[in-house]
């Protein structure tokens, strides 16, 4: 087993990976950018090395610096987390060539599945159904528009190089096309240093459902059931759950088999996720395969009892996965809410600032994977996700109730978060009934974005009383002083 692992990432996921390393008795090395020096993951690591840079490009995307630190600190392996270099085949390759182990699939697999258009081709060849769209990356706007008409609006413009919703744009009609394409290209260039995009038909009223795969070097390959990630804002997941209310036993088995076939088609090793769209007629289409740990992996951990990071490390060390059969019976139900620093009333715009007070939720059924501490400065340089709240229940209803309770309990001051939005999702009747798809936020706008006034009176009274309380306190302090002065004067007189 490895003695020391370098985690080439930041925030909650760096901390998450280190926790499993500690549980396994493996030393941890953090790398950090200038703005992250105070971050909990740096404090938590056994060792920490500066990357001497601020932007991602100067720090977490610098392969040379990261590999030099791995060498210097005598790490055996590198865990890339998600985002940053996690789906960069060059990086995986360089790590291996430097004599270190890359905790993830082989470089060739990343290369194949990382190029979303190449992956689509591979799936089409293997008879896995894919969403209609362009087979090649787009270079020509005029040609692209022609294709869009062929596919039929609405269409999605997507980054060929990556995921996470970055570089993605929904185009409802031709008038919007040029501007959306420009923006998508700029965003994917900034995020992945690659401006290739492609087109896909936008499947309306669809569910985003993904299967967790584990494959080891001994030939074992299993799936751990699905996660429903249909609640999305700005094409990024906000709420995930497992199992999905949509899947029948039969459909689960069929999709699970397709997911394993997709993984086999690219000789997959390590943990990976096969993403599908499921339309209202329960047809499913391959979307993409994420060749890394997924943000929402805790949901699967709760219902399977496995530690996915531990499985990743075991696989990378050449060991067998600790379970050999597909997961068909789930332990209860699990939900994840992503807590973002953002103002949901202002189109989910990022809300940076300093965390002045923090009291997270706890209690039965609640797990938190957090990357923050009181006193932290949330900067604009990276993704605004602060923490993940995970709720487990014996059934879906209990999981939702527990999540709702934890969200209401969570106290964070100094920055705005999407917690009030998440509360509304958990209170939403359609969500509670399991009656939702990727159009959820659009369709439930009224309830989700309503200005609430029920607590306004308590807030008003609280503000008025607190103002009075604080002024009385400073007033009585003054009184105290003047009384002391009188006493002292008397003393001086006597």
């Amino acid at each position, binding site marked *: 087993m490895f003695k020391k692992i370098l985690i080439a990432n930041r925030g909650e996921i760096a901390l998450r990976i280190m926790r499993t390393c500690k549980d396994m008795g493996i030393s941890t090395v953090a790398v950090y950018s200038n703005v992250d020096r105070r971050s909990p993951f740096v404090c938590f690591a056994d060792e920490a090395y500066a990357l001497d840079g601020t932007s991602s490009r100067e720090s977490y995307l610098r392969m040379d610096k990261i590999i030099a630190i791995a060498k210097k600190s005598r790490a055996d392996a590198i865990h890339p987390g998600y985002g940053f270099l996690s789906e960069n085949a060059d990086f995986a390759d360089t790590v291996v060539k430097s004599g270190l182990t890359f905790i993830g699939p082989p470089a060739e697999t990343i290369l194949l599945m990382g190029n979303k258009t190449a992956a689509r081709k591979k799936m089409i060849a293997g008879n896995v159904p894919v969403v209609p769209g362009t087979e090649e990356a787009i270079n020509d706007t005029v040609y692209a528009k022609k294709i869009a008409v062929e596919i039929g609006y609405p269409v999605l413009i997507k980054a060929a190089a990556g995921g996470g919703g970055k570089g993605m744009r929904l185009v409802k009609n031709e008038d919007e096309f040029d501007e959306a394409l420009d923006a998508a290209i700029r965003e994917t260039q900034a995020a992945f240093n690659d401006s290739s995009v492609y087109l896909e038909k936008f499947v309306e009223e669809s569910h985003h459902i993904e299967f967790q795969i584990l494959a080891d070097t001994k030939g074992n390959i299993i799936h751990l059931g699905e996660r429903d990630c249909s609640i999305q804002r700005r094409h990024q997941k906000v709420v995930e759950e497992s199992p999905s209310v949509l899947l029948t036993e039969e459909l689960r088995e069929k999709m699970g088999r397709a997911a394993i076939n997709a993984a086999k088609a690219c000789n997959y090793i390590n943990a990976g996720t096969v993403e599908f769209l499921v339309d209202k007629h329960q047809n499913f289409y391959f979307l993409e395969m994420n060749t890394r740990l997924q943000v929402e992996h805790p949901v699967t951990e709760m219902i399977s009892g496995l530690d996915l990071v531990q499985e990743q490390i075991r696989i990378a060390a050449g060991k067998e996965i600790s379970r050999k059969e597909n997961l068909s019976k789930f332990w209860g139900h699990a939900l994840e809410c992503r807590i973002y620093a953002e103002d949901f009333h202002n189109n989910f715009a*990022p809300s*940076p600032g300093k965390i002045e007070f923090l009291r997270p939720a706890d209690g039965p059924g609640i797990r938190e994977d957090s990357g923050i501490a009181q006193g932290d400065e949330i900067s604009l340089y990276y993704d605004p996700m602060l923490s993940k709240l995970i709720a487990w229940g014996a059934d879906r209803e209990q999981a939702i109730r527990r999540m709702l309770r934890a*969200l*209401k309990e969570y*106290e964070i001051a100094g920055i705005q978060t999407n917690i009030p939005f998440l*509360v509304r999702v958990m209170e939403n009747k359609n969500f509670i009934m399991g009656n939702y798809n990727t159009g959820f936020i659009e369709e439930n706008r009224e309830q989700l974005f309503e200005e609430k006034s029920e*607590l306004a009176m308590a807030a*008003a009274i*609280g503000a008025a*009383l607190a103002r009075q309380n604080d002024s009385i306190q400073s007033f009585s302090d003054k009184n105290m002083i003047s009384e002391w002065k009188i006493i002292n004067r008397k003393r001086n007189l006597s």
Partner: protein
Amino acid sequence: MKLFVNSEKNEFVLHINNNNEQENTLQVDNRMYTYDLIALGFGRYSLLLDNHSYTLLQVKKDDLYHVQIDNNHFVLQLEDEHKRKIKELFKKVQTGPEVQIIKAPIPGLVIKINAVEGELVEEGGGLLILEAMKMENLIKASCSCRIKEVMVKEKDSVQLNQPLMKLVKE
């Protein structure tokens, strides 16, 4: 003491009695409540209002009270009678065309400016694109107005609430 508390949607008129008798009471819009408020530190307060329990997180910024209960945010303005009267007097003498300043809702980098000075824009029309946390954010016109002044240029870094454009309703 009489106080006017305004949120975006509501106005409450409060009378607070704290004559240090057995129970503190206050009156809101003609209904009486008992109350007990205690500071917990770090801007946290515990309020019992007719024995109903609320935990508040509170910050004062530029004369506005930002209050959070159960993760609901309220931005409140507090005025006593004196302050309110002065404000009403001021309101009466204000005239002229309505000028609106578009401020940066987030700190970020100005990627693109879509409007030029003197141009007429529709309500909801895109004015400029701000990049923050690797995502692009389109800033839209909040009314059908004429662009009076563009106060930033492309590639500028802007702070939260920094004025970006001046619009005039004609």
